């Protein structure tokens, strides 16, 4: 029998927030097997970790910073919040492991997955689900490393840790405490079954073009430099990428074409998409969020793109971003082996960019998830990149929503 409890508290100081958390957790079983923790980047990591280790001494811990706090079945907790999802499953196995992404990120991910399996006492076993939380920047390499071990036979779900102002203050928390520029991998072998979903709330606006040149901006101190894949689109159809993109979105970036700079806020409703396959002739898209205009009209993005890829201009609407979260939660719950009625609770990864775009209507997002998770406990974090399985393939995207549902 799997049981879940979710707690979300706020506090002006970390000490105050932890005191509130201790009060909320109260008599929660200390024999928890898996604990997810997400918190506003303004909080002090060590104090949070010390609390968790003391309170849930045997639990596998996974989490990190989340843009402007968390949400739960009680609503949007808001800035300076800390959220916990506490899972108790005596018949399941759970393990986490963490590493800093030094050297080849794919190798790091592969080693960390094996370590997480060891920690779950399941070395060599295919998990039911892999949950990752990582620093933004090398998500594709991380997924590649994990896929070397499990292929697409098991879903890889998770998010890229976030701070409140894209200032690089994101951190990750694993079984041994906080890390920077790192990766935490969790392996889940549940006894009640797991459902999952990974979707975006955008659709093509009509324009498209071929990526004709890519640049590479190494993140951290590692990474394989290739000429054909990277996070800087230099040109689309032979023209400077920013100019083409600006045309696609109706000239919204006109004043930044020459000066360059951050365009996250201007582009949240107009990401680009890549074709990841068709169902009955209808294309599914993985979303990529352009974040900066660079020198010479290049476009920086939050996910890698290969040269020769056709990019599609996408469009979103605030109302869809609100309702979509609920739909993703419902889809995950529907996938449980025992159906929605066996739902014990869940986890939701909601893009930080979408959160900023939805703005003051974010409480409606939390309500949509709560309704579709039937009021069961859940914890939602806000990330700068989302990972999930789309059409059976594990992938990294932006402006996406992931949900995991746990069966009883």
């Amino acid at each position, binding site marked *: 029998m799997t049981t879940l409890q979710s707690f979300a508290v706020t506090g002006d100081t970390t000490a105050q927030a932890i005191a509130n958390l201790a009060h909320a957790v109260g008599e929660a079983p200390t024999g928890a097997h898996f604990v997810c923790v997400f918190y506003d980047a303004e909080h002090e990591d060590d104090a949070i970790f010390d609390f968790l280790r003391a309170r849930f001494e045997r639990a596998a811990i996974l989490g990190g910073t989340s843009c402007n706090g968390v949400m739960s079945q009680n609503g949007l907790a808001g800035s300076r919040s800390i959220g916990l999802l506490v899972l108790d499953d005596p018949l399941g196995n759970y393990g986490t492991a963490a590493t800093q992404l030094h050297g080849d990120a794919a190798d790091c991910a592969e080693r960390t997955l094996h370590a997480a399996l060891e920690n779950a006492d399941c070395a060599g*076993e*295919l998990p039911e689900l892999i949950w990752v939380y990582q620093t933004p920047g090398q998500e594709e390499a991380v997924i590649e490393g994990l896929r070397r071990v499990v*292929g697409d036979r098991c879903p890889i779900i998770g998010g890229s840790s976030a701070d409140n102002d894209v200032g690089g203050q994101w951190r990750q928390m694993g079984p041994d405490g906080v890390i920077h520029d790192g990766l935490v991998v969790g392996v889940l072998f549940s006894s009640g079954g797991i459902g999952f979903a990974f979707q975006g709330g955008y659709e*093509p606006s009509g324009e498209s073009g071929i990526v004709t040149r890519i640049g590479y901006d190494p993140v951290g101190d590692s990474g394989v430099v290739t000429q054909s894949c990277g996070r800087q689109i230099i040109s689309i159809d032979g023209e400077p990428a920013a100019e083409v993109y600006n045309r696609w979105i*109706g000239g919204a970036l006109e004043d930044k074409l020459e000066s360059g700079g951050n365009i996250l806020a201007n582009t949240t409703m107009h990401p680009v998409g890549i074709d990841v396959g068709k*169902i009955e002739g*209808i294309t*599914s898209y993985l979303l990529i969020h352009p974040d900066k205009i660079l020198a010479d009209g290049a476009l920086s993005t939050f996910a890698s793109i290969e040269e020769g890829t056709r990019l599609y201009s996408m469009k979103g609407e605030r109302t869809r971003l609100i309702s979509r979260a609920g*739909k993703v939660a419902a889809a995950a719950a529907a996938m449980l082996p025992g159906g929605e009625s066996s739902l014990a609770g869940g986890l939701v990864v909601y893009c930080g960019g979408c959160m900023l775009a939805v703005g003051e209507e974010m409480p409606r997002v939390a309500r949509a998830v709560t309704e579709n998770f039937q009021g069961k406990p859940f914890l939602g974090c806000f990330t700068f990149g989302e990972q999930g399985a789309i059409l059976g393939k594990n992938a990294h995207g932006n402006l996406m929503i992931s949900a995991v549902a746990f069966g009883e």
Partner: protein
Amino acid sequence: MEGSEELREALVTLRRENDLLRVETTHANLLLKALDAVLCVDGGDDPFAGVFSALMPVFDCSHAIVLIEPKNETEGLECVASSAPSAVGSLWAQDKLLEKALAGRIITTVADFDVAAGPGVPGLDFTGREPALYLPLGVRGRRGLMLLLRSDGKPGFDRAHVALAKKFSLLASHAFAAKRANQTEMERHRLKHLTEQLEASQQALRHRANHDQLTDLPNRAYIEELVEEAIASKLEGEELALAFIDLDNFKRVNDIHGHAAGDALLREVSKRMRCTIRHSDILGRISGDEFVIVLNHIGRHSDISALVKRICNRLREPFHIEGTEIHPSASIGVAIHPVHGGDYDTLRRHADMAMYHAKIVSKGSIAFFNRQLEKKATEKHILEQELRNALDMHAFHCALQQKVDIRTGAIVGFEALARRVDRHGIMHAPMTFLPLANELGLLNDITDLVICDLERELPRLDARFGAGVRYSVNITPNQAANMQFMQRLVEQLRNTGRPESFMLELTEESLAVTGPFQSHVLPLLRDAGIGLSIDDFGTGYSSLATIADLTVDELKIDRSLISSIHNRPRSQSILRAIESMGTALGISVVAEGIETMEENLYLMAQTGLRIGQGYLFHKPQLLTALLQETPATPRPGHDRNNREPA
């Protein structure tokens, strides 16, 4: 559906459900087969032979081994069955994964993981890195497990295999236990019950896989199967008819009354049709609002007409859905086997063509397939390919027709028109491609090409005709309603650096619903200095309110009013009224379609109009030809038989 995102979502859900059904059906079949193998063999036979032959193809494995705890205190596990008979009797060292499986856990391994070390039995060629699946199995009253192995290098087992292994493990353990207890009455009853449950669930799954959940009618795949069966059973000379039924304006029902009402209507339509067809006919729903009826036993062709007409009439009767009366209708196309097709796919395609024809001719009508329809569909398909190729090859070009001062002959403007030039250099008139391009949603791209052409040649046009000349661009009603397109178009014209040199010509139909146009586009046009002209004025709504709301710059009087104006007193009166209105509102009035000297003389003598356009002055010319031509004065009286379709 609100948009493609919703459509995609619905399809993903559908595919997931179909995949789930397929997997569950396969599992149920396999479990029955394997269970049958366990239960039905005679006492002395090895039940595993049947189990292995049922399981191994589905799990795509190369070896299957059954290990159990030995009776005595010997260490390790004893192999009691194997797909490689030489392994039977061997002892296996008990490692951690084997121990977990014995304890009841289903396990599959990740890549490059060393599986249980085999005892080195001939016939079991282990590298130790084979993908493995462990499933617990109670055998002979002892804890045991089945180990399934794939060849080294093959992909590992996935979660679907784990789910199947879980079901098999449970059922097979029960079956073995019952068998071992010599099948007491109670156990036999329990197994019988389990088997019956499985059979019932298999039947339910088969029904779900073959039927549409909304209407419970056979779905597309099952209809195909039924039609193919019916065709195969036909003797020479026997016929079968396939009627393709499409509800007219079903989208409006969803839009106005909501999707729940739409679904309810589909259910009611299904019920009504089911009551109308004969016992031997087959009714199915193949998608959204599309149904198929297979008329299986046909005496005479008139029977088909009568039956299809009856269905058509029944569907015209109102439905009462959620307190609302809905008046639907359906267009029906019919194809007959064997004359119109020897298989389901051909028959459905031909019936679909006939339905489409019926819908075009008159919604709510019936059409039978004929070869002429097929020819038209083929021609349309070819033209569609040609148009798409022409777009890729930039084979749409800008042609210009002069607007002139009818009193001085001076050129005051041009109307930009689209022309397709094929690879043989032949120019195609707009009527040959515009309707289909509109239907296919290609007009925006064509308009883009025309404007690009024009923009490129603006400097040469200026040099030749002066910078004060204004260029008109035609906009269709669909384009006018497409805010994104209109905003992009304004931006494109702005980018020429002289948007005030352009005017958009919209028909009255485009302006019938002025709301979004007025609020979103008109301010952009005004801000950029782009003019607005109402084309074909006098043939549509001719709404004064629209003119007042939109503050248009120009009215182009339709050619039907100008034609033979000198002989038509009623047209003359209307013309005078429009002219007066134009003067009062400060709107320029243009006479379109001036083709004869008599018409022109009348306009000059009896009206105050200054600007005219028509073949009398100038026939549309490709930009390149126009710019190459030696400058000349307008040519009144030019060949009037070369009239271009509008």
